[in-house]
């Protein structure tokens, strides 16, 4: 993939990933084949800021965790009033990191990129 494309992806999506992973992502993108571009482009990445808003408003109902795909945790949060309200508050601070990790997991699921990420 051309450096220009990789840079374009990084510029628009840097905030979606943990900052220490960004250089690795760029490197892998440059090394990758041009055909992976469409796969990378169509990834459904979640914006951490949006998730923070969702967590602030619907955290007690577990909506943030449902959106991230952590359905089990979502159900747990929902059935316990947001974990006695404590878990909901803790998640206001954790959800952005969790979102970035989930995004990284999604990116690592593209086999052509060859990113090893266990989260």
């Amino acid at each position: 993939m051309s450096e220009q494309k990789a840079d374009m992806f990084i510029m628009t999506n840097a905030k979606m990933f943990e900052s220490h992973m960004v250089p690795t992502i760029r490197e892998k993108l440059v090394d990758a084949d041009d055909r992976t571009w469409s796969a990378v482009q169509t990834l459904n990445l979640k914006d951490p800021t949006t998730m923070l808003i969702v967590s602030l408003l619907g955290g007690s109902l577990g909506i943030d965790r449902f959106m991230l795909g952590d359905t089990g945790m979502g159900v747990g949060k929902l059935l316990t009033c947001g974990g006695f309200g404590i878990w909901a508050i803790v998640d206001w601070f954790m959800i952005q990191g969790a979102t970035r990790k989930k995004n990284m997991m999604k990116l690592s699921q593209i086999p052509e990129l060859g990113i090893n990420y266990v989260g």
Partner: protein
Amino acid sequence: MSAKKLYLFTIIGLLLGYAWIGFHTIKAQQESEKVYPTCLIKITTGYPCPACGTSRSIISLVDGNIKQAIYTNPFGLLMAFLMLLLPFWMLFDAIRKRQTYWKAYQKMETFFNYKPILILFIIIVLANWIWNIYKGL
């Protein structure tokens, strides 16, 4: 979520849950049956959330009053069932050195990702929410 994290999370949740229920059961015998609200929705808006009343439901169940438990919040029965089941399940896993609980959890997650199930679940939760507001928990 990794298996280790899930087991740790469940153990902490169960301990908190048992402490919470135990505290309120003892308190209910001594003075009032009032349960302290911890729910953010209830505290901020004054309206109950779908899970409000779960503690009261379980406390009624401890007293042997199943009818009252269902009337307060049917989710209480589910929670009570989980609180009874999970410690034994995790103990079984620990003794047999297997991860059946974690595998079941993952199966449950994929089960909930199936659209009709998710929609049915949301409808049940919403219905329970409306009932909660109607009851004025």
